[in-house]
């Protein structure tokens, strides 16, 4: 079962990333993922192909699908972080507009589309709610022009998938603490003080997922 899913994901990824002509890439992805679970690596590769379609041909259909899937979650994330519904709506729109504008900077060998959107949403939240600058690490020397390696991209998506599964399997209490940390309900010192729980948990139960992910990202 596992191997089958993996192989079909690989085949999909090859199609999705191999042909940058957006129609074929997206449609094959859409058809295939209908039969797969929501969080399958194949689905993740489909989102990657959608971002590529926006980058290469300003594909509005691909954007509409990304929007339908991600924007409501971004909005919910912002509301849980303290934004009013109106502000969260406005922000979620900004985040999705940023995805379009920065499509060329997305590197699927470094992050899943969900991770990437999370970082955009987080930065927007700091902008709007805290009205602060956000110092970012300097870019690594390789440019975004370089085409990411397809196999690397697939492995990264698979590992992120496993990380998500590991998080989902956490006991409710521990999961809630991790969520609180990301929704901004725990300060740094509270995170440090709670180390025994969420981070200790990450270290033991999710360590493997994280280690594989790190290996892939290097």
């Amino acid at each position, binding site marked *: 079962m596992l191997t089958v899913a993996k192989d079909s994901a690989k085949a999909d990824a090859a199609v999705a990333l191999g042909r940058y002509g957006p129609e074929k890439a997206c449609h094959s992805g859409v058809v295939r993922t209908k039969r797969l679970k929501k969080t399958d690596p194949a689905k993740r590769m489909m989102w990657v192909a959608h971002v590529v379609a926006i980058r290469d041909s300003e594909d*509005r259909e691909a954007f509409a699908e990304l*929007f*339908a899937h*991600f*924007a*409501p*979650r*971004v*909005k*919910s*994330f912002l509301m*849980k972080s303290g934004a009013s519904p109106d502000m*969260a*709506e406005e922000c*979620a*729109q*900004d985040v999705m*507009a940023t995805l379009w*504008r920065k499509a*060329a900077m997305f590197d699927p060998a470094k*992050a*899943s589309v*969900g*991770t*990437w959107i*999370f*970082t955009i949403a*987080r930065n927007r939240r*700091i902008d709007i709610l*805290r009205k*602060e*600058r*956000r*110092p*970012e*690490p*300097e*870019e*690594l020397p390789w440019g*975004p022009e370089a085409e990411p390696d397809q196999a690397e991209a697939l492995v990264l998506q698979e590992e*992120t998938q496993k*990380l*998500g599964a590991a*998080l989902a399997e956490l006991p409710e209490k521990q999961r809630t603490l*991790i*969520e609180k*940390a*990301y929704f*901004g309900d*725990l*300060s*740094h*010192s509270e*995170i*440090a003080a709670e180390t025994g729980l969420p981070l200790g948990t*990450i*270290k033991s139960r999710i360590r493997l997922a994280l280690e594989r992910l*790190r290996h892939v*990202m*290097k």
Partner: protein
Amino acid sequence: MTEIKHHLTDALLMGYAAGTLPEAFNLVVATHISMCDDCRAALAEFEAVGGEVMMTSESAEMAEDSLTATLDKIANAPSAPKVRPRTSGLFPTPLQDYVNGDLDAVKWRKIGGGVSQAVLPTSKGATVRLLHIPAGTAVPDHGHRGTELTLVLQGAFVDETDRFAAGDVEVANEDLNHTPVAEAGMDCICLAATDAPLKFNGLMPRIVQRFVGI
């Protein structure tokens, strides 16, 4: 650069990934990550955790015209920002953005004992400063009320716990009383952030503190 021995803690990396640290801490974290591939990889993991948390929580309903409004924003927005080129010099790019230049652009103020500082502008909640400690000089013995992050940019210092060279970051909390001493040879330049005023253990420094606002 020599190998980095002292890294950011998981709590700091998680806080930076979540976007919940004060701006002053963010600057130290971003500057260290610019110098450290290990912490850059660890940050990517914590961002992946954030992505999964966001993607698996329930979704909120979007406004009816949301997609159209977003497409309008895209049509009216300026084109994509260019990736900033890496700057050369001693300071990594995020720090240069706050200094408005490299080492030669820093406006130092003497704070006694040969030590100089330059406070960088950030939002409230924590402060961040550059420290210039002449080779062989000690920073007065002090403790911490909150957390203090000290990132070495040039030279090295030694305190009761260990030696910290370029790229190393020391994370100190209430438990640590220390007297950092710059090594002989090269002046030590550090980026230090605190979320509470330092506690100096001698009387004189406490008086100095009132004037210089450490």
